[in-house]
């Protein structure tokens, strides 16, 4: 089974965001980068499909050339090759991103059975890249998938809604968008990490089109520091807490 997973490098945000002077971007000077949990789970789900059915997994990233670091770290758990659509690192809106991914997939010799996205990216959360790609390739799509089982060329997908699970079935080839928790990512092994360094990665520069959704500036939402009332770490503090439980009506 040939699987493509689209992953995006995002800032490893600390406990607050710091903006640059003109408030047009996050100040990233002291920040690292990571992948969204949705996409880490997506890679694990893809690797499990390969383990069950054979075939290969390809990773695709549109972003700064330094995204290679996130790509290699994911390759350490199994994916075989990668495509990096290299940009200057500035933001692309969802339509522009989808169009570049569509072009890249059309150029591929590999015919993918499953194309996996995160349901929304951790940073800009547009909820649409996977859906736009599916439409352009005339493929069916199931979104927000949290459980996956493939049998006889049909993917059985579970989507969590409250305490219930909705079940969808879709014949392959298909596009899926998945959520954190669909498959808990394994830790990379040392040999896995070493192998990852030598796996093939094709780099194609891409030209950014005019944005349809043009970021003007960023703003931090007001945080009202609550000024916590401190309680002592002993029986006295515990009794005060019980009084609070009573006051707010959670203990009768």
């Amino acid at each position, binding site marked *: 089974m040939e699987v493509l997973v689209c992953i995006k490098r995002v800032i490893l945000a600390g406990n607050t965001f710091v903006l640059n002077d003109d408030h047009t971007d996050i100040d990233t000077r002291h920040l690292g980068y990571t992948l969204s949990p949705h996409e880490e789970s997506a890679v694990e789900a893809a690797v499990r499909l390969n383990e069950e059915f054979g075939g290969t997994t390809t990773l695709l990233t549109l972003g700064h050339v330094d995204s290679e670091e996130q790509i290699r770290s994911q390759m350490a758990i199994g994916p075989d090759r990668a495509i990096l659509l290299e940009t200057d690192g500035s933001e692309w809106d969802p339509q522009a991103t989808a169009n570049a991914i569509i072009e890249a997939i059309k150029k591929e010799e590999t015919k993918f059975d499953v194309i996996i996205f995160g349901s929304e990216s951790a940073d800009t959360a547009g909820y*649409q890249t996977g859906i736009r790609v599916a439409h352009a390739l005339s493929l069916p799509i199931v979104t927000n998938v949290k459980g996956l089982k493939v049998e006889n060329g049909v993917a059985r997908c579970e989507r969590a809604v409250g305490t219930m699970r909705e079940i*969808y079935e879709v014949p392959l080839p298909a596009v899926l968008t998945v959520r954190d928790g669909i498959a808990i*990512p394994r830790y990379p092994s040392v040999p896995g990490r070493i192998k990852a360094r030598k796996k093939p990665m094709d780099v194609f520069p891409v030209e950014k089109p005019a944005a349809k959704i043009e970021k*003007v500036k*960023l703003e931090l939402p007001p945080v009202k520091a609550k000024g*916590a009332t401190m309680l002592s770490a002993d*029986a006295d503090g515990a009794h005060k807490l019980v009084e609070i439980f009573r006051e707010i009506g959670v*203990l009768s």
Partner: protein
Amino acid sequence: MILVFVDHDRGVIEDISLQGITFARSLDATVEAVVVGGEANAALLGEYGVTKIHHATHASLVDYTPQAAGRALAEVVKRTSPSALISGGTPRGNEVLAHAGAMLDLPVVADCSEIDLGTSTVKRMRWGGNLIEHAKVHTSMMIASIFPHQIAALPAPASAEVASFEPELTAQDTLVKIIDRTGEAAGGVTLAEAKVIVSGGRGVGEDFTLIETLAGLLGGAVGCSRVVTAAGWRPHAEQVGQTGTKVAPDLYIACGISGATQHIAGCKNSKTLIAINTDGDAPIMSYADYAIVGDLHQILPAIIAATQAAKG
């Protein structure tokens, strides 16, 4: 006229969808709705100010069918030329707008908190509500979802006329649909509905007995951070946060949780937040109403004992 997509689950309309309608009324005096399948729900939608309901009915629309809903929506847009297409920011709302946007080849702006149609600008949420983006949208028609719980749903009684129509659907449109539903292993109170959540992070370790015991005494549910689910200590269904479940209980007790922005995104609407942490400078402290600095393995047994004594 503003067109609002109203999602429903087998006829039941969520509060977030009514928030979408309320928001739409602030953009234009005339609000019309699109309901796909099920019932038109004219009484409820009329109460929230909708004057016309475009109700899509079709033999293939038995249960939720995302792409068909997008097709029906795109059809009404072409027929009625609204000044904007809005939806409450539910998972289904975002999904169906994205389908319609792809079909109409128009941008879709998700999770908006403000919209100005005159200047075609929006404010929208990033990072699960931790960062606000001001954006200009270059489009012939605004398509936007409204971030949940930005505004309260308010009635504005009108009488809604129902116009049923049969959308032209392709075979592909109805290929992906709900074919079955299963209940999650029913075990006590669910996270989203719980009035009390006792939540544990890395500081708890593998053994959640203390967390479970206190949650049980308070009739609440167990929550946890992503460190805990990634380690396999607790099931993913219990994860609170940006990529877990968003909760708004009366009481949230965060034990051994540092308060990363992504965790806070899921619990900041808790009415009362209590933090128990060895580190008095942990970020969770600035979101807490009450805090105890110390080792949870000593503090929780004392709280459990005091609660048991109080219950008699």
